[in-house]
């Protein structure tokens, strides 16, 4: 289970490169953190906490819908807790919000169910001699495809069990304390998990009768409806909408905080100081940024293994990106990114933006020097433990020719 979740972390970040190669375990051996924003299962691994949070959010996603969302994009934005000055462990964590709007094609069964909710009806489906609500595409006993034989159920039902949500988050379907309850609707043989508005936990009990109330604005989502005690229900007259619900939108957003590991904090401090701090691995090559461990020798690296690299390197390859104009695109003109290997480093930087050297003058083998921003303008907002590279672009103003002759092509390392 942990393996699976850790992989989810990678994809949440959209950070393909260091993660996928890193393998398990992802425990960052030898690292400790003074503050732990999450502490699931006694783990010190923030990654794990993150994915548990993602898992919870995804569950919320099942029951939550936002109409009129922007078309999809992947966005990570940052609320820095530390812009300037010395990086100490206590100044982190840094807060992030990861957001991604998804769409769903609910298919012939759930689509009909959602259409029903929009139209003020709750539909179950016939499965043998039972009525399932919410309906399912396949018989949960035999896996056979169910015929599209829908039956109106409710709008009242019986609470089979419940839990009280004393402090709803902005993601909950009701923005005041409420109950999540298993409601068996009249006419149905199975229960539906849904929200019940009640004045307090003393006002809800197993066996109590509740009635569906439809919201004013309905979009074909499970949140078009909620439940109230039967006695509190108001008579509603619902005007059916048009067409079937064939596609729905769902935004997952995940706020989280990340506390830097010691080697990450030293790397971040280096950037603020205008220095590139890597770590020497056991075979003598330098990993930049350092990982806190030697991936090949499988040993922990400490401050004693830190190495400062010169801000000078060689272009190993590059590409010119013609930005595709999708919603959320921030680039409008073609731009050049280069893969640079710093002198003394054993591995390359991820593509660095080159905006000041014309494409027709750019070439593999060029010697470039990083020109840092003024100290007051350097920020490390987007340093996180897993993906430290992008922060280089936040401290380096630009790359310029070092004035040295090109590196001969046959002397370039093969690591691209």
């Amino acid at each position, binding site marked *: 289970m942990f393996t699976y979740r850790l992989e989810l972390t*990678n994809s949440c970040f959209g950070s393909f490169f260091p993660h996928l190669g890193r393998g398990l375990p992802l425990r960052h051996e030898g690292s400790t953190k003074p503050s732990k924003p999450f502490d699931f299962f006694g783990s010190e691994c923030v990654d794990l906490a993150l994915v548990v949070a993602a898992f919870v959010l995804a569950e919320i996603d099942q029951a939550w819908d936002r109409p009129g969302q922007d078309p*999809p994009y992947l966005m990570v934005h940052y609320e820095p807790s530390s812009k300037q000055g010395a990086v100490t462990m206590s100044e982190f964590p840094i807060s992030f919000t990861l957001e991604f709007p998804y769409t769903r*094609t609910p298919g012939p069964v759930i689509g009909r169910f959602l259409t029903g909710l929009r139209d003020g009806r709750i539909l179950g489906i016939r499965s043998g001699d039972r009525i399932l609500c919410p309906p399912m*595409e396949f018989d*949960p006993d035999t896996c056979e495809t169910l015929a599209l034989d829908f039956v109106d159920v409710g709008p009242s039902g019986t609470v089979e069990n419940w839990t009280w949500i004393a402090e709803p988050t902005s993601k909950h379907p009701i923005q005041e304390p409420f109950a999540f309850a298993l409601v068996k609707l009249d006419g149905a043989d199975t229960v539906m998990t849904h929200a019940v508005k009640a004045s307090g936990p003393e006002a809800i009990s197993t066996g109590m009768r509740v009635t569906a109330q439809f919201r004013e604005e309905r979009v074909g989502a499970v949140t078009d409806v909620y439940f109230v005690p039967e006695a509190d229900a108001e008579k509603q007259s619902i005007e059916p909408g048009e067409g079937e619900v064939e596609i729905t939108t769902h935004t997952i957003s995940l706020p989280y905080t990340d506390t830097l590991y010691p080697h990450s904090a030293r790397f971040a401090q280096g950037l603020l100081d205008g220095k590139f701090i890597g770590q020497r691995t056991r075979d003598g090559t330098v990993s930049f940024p350092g990982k806190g461990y030697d991936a090949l020798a499988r040993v922990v690296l400490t401050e004693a293994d830190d190495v400062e690299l010169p801000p000078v390197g060689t272009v190993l390859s590059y590409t010119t990106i013609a930005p595709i104009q999708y919603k959320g695109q921030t680039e409008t003109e073609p731009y050049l990114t280069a893969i640079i290997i710093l002198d003394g480093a054993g591995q390359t930087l991820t593509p660095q933006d080159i905006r000041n050297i014309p494409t027709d003058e750019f070439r593999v083998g060029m010697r470039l020097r990083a020109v840092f921003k003024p100290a007051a303008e350097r920020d490390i907002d987007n340093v996180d433990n897993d993906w430290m590279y992008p922060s280089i672009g936040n401290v380096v103003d630009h790359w310029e020719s070092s004035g040295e002759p090109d590196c001969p092509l046959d002397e370039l390392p093969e690591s691209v």
Partner: protein
Amino acid sequence: MAERCAVIGIGQTDFKTRLDLSMDGLVRWAALEALEDAGLTFDDIDAVVIGKAPDALEGVIMPELSLCDALGAIGKPIHRVHTAGSVGGSTAVSASTMIESGMYNTVLTVAYEKLSDGNFMWALSGGRSGGAGAGGSFAPWIRNYIRRSGAPDDIGCKVAAKDRRNGAKNPHSHVSQADLTPEVVAESPMIWDPIHFLEVCPSSDGAAAMVMTNAEGAKRSIQKPAWVISHAKRTEFGVFPGRDPVIPVAGMECARALYKKAGITDPRRQIDCAELYVPFSWFEPMWLETHLIAQPGEGWKMVETGATEIGGDFPVNMSGGVICSNPIGATGMLRLLEPVNQVRGTAGDYQVEGAKVALGQAFGGPNNYFAMWIVSSEPDPDFS
């Protein structure tokens, strides 16, 4: 291994965007087709192995649990595999090991992606994520392949034109262009220099499925069995000092292990055709070298001479490959499924005449996960 493994049923969906189906309906489509192909039902299946790429692509977490009824897995073991883009390949390989181990007699394996649910914009460069995107990340490596091998600039265009033309013979293709020429590819916009627009895979929906069984099951099969001769998976770190992502060591070692187990000493001669995971055209010559089919620096020559065309001496991506359809999780499985199609002789318009031994390969991540297998119409093919 205790048992031999044979593929006796295959199924795949069309790979265009599917707004009519739920995710459940999509995987079930492929699963039912594979079962029908094998002449079996869910009742005959002992275990299900499912694979897909990151859950974040659709935002449905742990889908293997919510899909168990769609896959007939209620009351049976279901296993989930995940190795980034190579996952469809490693899922099929994992399923075959479950047969070989003797643990199960008949296994259903399924892989899928429904990319339209997530509108896969994070594969593109820039935007709010500020990332390099898939193309932006691979393009510099391709540039270095070209520099190191001395390949002519139009090799990628030739691969893309071949794959899109092949794809026009495959009724499942998402994108295909029956008359595409390298010249037209070269005239398409340069998106990630040196990658042109027409050298890039699409973003597809789809599922693929296979039914595997042991030698006893194969005897009863209504289909001609495709025997799994050997398989291999290899992994390396994505970033480490001294790594060569253009010709990754893991890719070479995966091929070495695969050929050794099969008894293959001259892959280009002893293998009749291959499906390779080529999401950007230039990966074809890169993989031909990585997987030891071509000599170092010479993969592009196989493209230039037409060896990788259907009718050439080593056809590659007869189905149109990833350049025509890329439902990511399913893509790797399709690379292993299409060789089955070939050695059974059921590949229709893109059949390689007389194919007896075929190679399937999938890769994932930044060129650091590999899954490969070799299948044959014969349980013990003679490679002499």
